[in-house]
């Protein structure tokens, strides 16, 4: 892995989603960076790459993936890594992130972010996979805490404890999804504040803010709502602990006009700024 540096603070950004492509191409949008879903642009040509190149001329870009499957017992797929590296070389992103999860195994791909048991064995597998990815991409990556809906009988440590050791062993960084902490905390009965207190301060390089929905039995990470009050309150707590960290509003369904998301992003700016001033 190269010693490429990821700056501690890159400002406030939004996810680039198809309903907003024209806004980003035709207007100056007041964001410090945009985050793209890597897989949407790991294509051979056409409009997706045209749009990406045009947006990249105006804004720094962070790449966020959903298919790395960093926790697969049978490793990260070489073809996926090759294609990801090609996109990394094209974009020169601020950073590359994916999720602490597994998506597929032995030729099957669920296209869902499936949970990992937090065991010593899983930690070794994840760390080996991270090292391989970082070697190929020649940069440290960020991994995001997932929302989860079940836990495992053999769990040997907390999720934040797992992530702390993962960072220590591999030099990777964290994308802390505040909504996911809230969702998983509610679903599994842990205290989100304790979770945040256990995350290593110097490893967090990005935070996601999003909304969720109440399912029949569990909270579901739907990204189809504005950021709710309990998530904002957790964000305040995270800002107090981690200081200025790049923050993004993540919306993937029922996507509102861009102006609404920019207003939500202004709230994040204000809350983070207020806490910074108070510090």
């Amino acid at each position, binding site marked *: 892995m190269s010693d490429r540096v990821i700056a501690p603070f890159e400002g406030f950004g939004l996810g680039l989603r198809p309903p907003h492509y024209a806004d980003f191409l035709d207007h100056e949008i007041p964001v410090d960076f945009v985050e793209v879903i890597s*897989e949407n642009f*790991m*294509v*051979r*040509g*056409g*409009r*997706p*790459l*045209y749009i990406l190149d045009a947006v990249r001329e105006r804004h720094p870009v962070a790449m966020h993936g959903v*298919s790395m*499957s960093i*926790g*697969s*017992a*049978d490793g990260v*797929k070489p*073809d*996926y890594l090759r294609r990801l590296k090609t996109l990394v070389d094209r974009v020169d992103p601020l950073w590359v992130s994916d999720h602490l999860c*597994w*998506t*597929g*195994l*032995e*030729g*099957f*791909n*669920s*296209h*869902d972010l*499936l949970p*990992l*048991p937090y*065991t010593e*064995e*899983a930690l070794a*597998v994840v760390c080996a996979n991270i090292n391989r990815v970082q070697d190929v991409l020649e940069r440290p990556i960020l991994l995001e805490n997932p929302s*989860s*809906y*079940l*836990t*495992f*009988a*053999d*769990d040997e440590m907390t999720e934040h404890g797992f992530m702390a050791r993962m960072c220590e062993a591999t030099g990777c960084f964290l994308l802390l999804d505040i909504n996911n902490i809230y969702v998983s905390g509610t*679903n599994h009965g842990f205290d989100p504040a304790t979770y945040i207190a256990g995350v290593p301060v110097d490893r967090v390089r990005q935070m996601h803010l999003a909304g969720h929905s109440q*399912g*029949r*039995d*569990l909270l*579901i990470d739907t990204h189809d709502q504005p950021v709710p009050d309990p998530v904002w309150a957790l964000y305040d707590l995270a800002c107090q602990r981690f200081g200025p960290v790049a923050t993004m509003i993540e919306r993937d369904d029922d996507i509102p006009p861009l102006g609404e998301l920019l207003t939500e992003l202004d709230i994040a700016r204000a809350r983070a700024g207020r806490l910074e001033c108070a510090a």
Partner: protein
Amino acid sequence: MSLLAIQRGLRDHILANQSGQSEGVSARGAAGLAVYRHAYRAQLVACLRDTFEQTWSWLGDDGFDAAALSHIVAHPPCGWTLDAYGEDFPETLTGLYPDDPEVAELAWLDWSLRRAFDGPDADPITPEALAEVDWESAVLTLPPTLTIGEVITNSAAIWGALTGGEAPPAVERLPAPAAIRVWRQGLSPQYRSIDAFERQALAMALDGYTFARLCEQLGGPDDAERTVARVGGLLGTWLQDGLVCSAG
């Protein structure tokens, strides 16, 4: 329990779509397992609806979703990108609708246009670039997004009406089998119905025939002039459609 065993168990549980326990999951995991089982299918159905939008429109929600769920059981996804999921959905539809060939034809058109959308880029040449071409030895290079499908119904007209939000025409069998070519011109995926003559000409061009040999093979022994004129007309259409990337 090993990570591999846990992951195999969860994979098999999701694929089987049966309530119950998955080995290694904590005792309170039933509700969570239901979330993952549901999310897997919901995401794939949504993916197929998105890719096969006009087929979905033609079959309606219930018919399409039943076909999609049947496909998901028979063809679990194996690629890392959802974009690749659905390549064999037209085949599934052929099996499910053996007496309605327009269904699979619509699905083929949906799929091919989606693939052309983000397929490799190519730069078509202008008619002026043909001024110096030696037609005896010239080979035409066609865009990498070009694909050709055989049709026996008026599926292209149905697809066009559905896309335009118009009432689709009734299904009709064509008087003779024909074809549709799909490609991307600039950033826009395109399709056009073609006759058997153009179909054969494109197949030969794709096979690397020289332009002279292509004309020779397409025409009978007595109508060489007529064939050259006809192929010349095709060449004009191809140039206009951005289908010729080089000739030399």
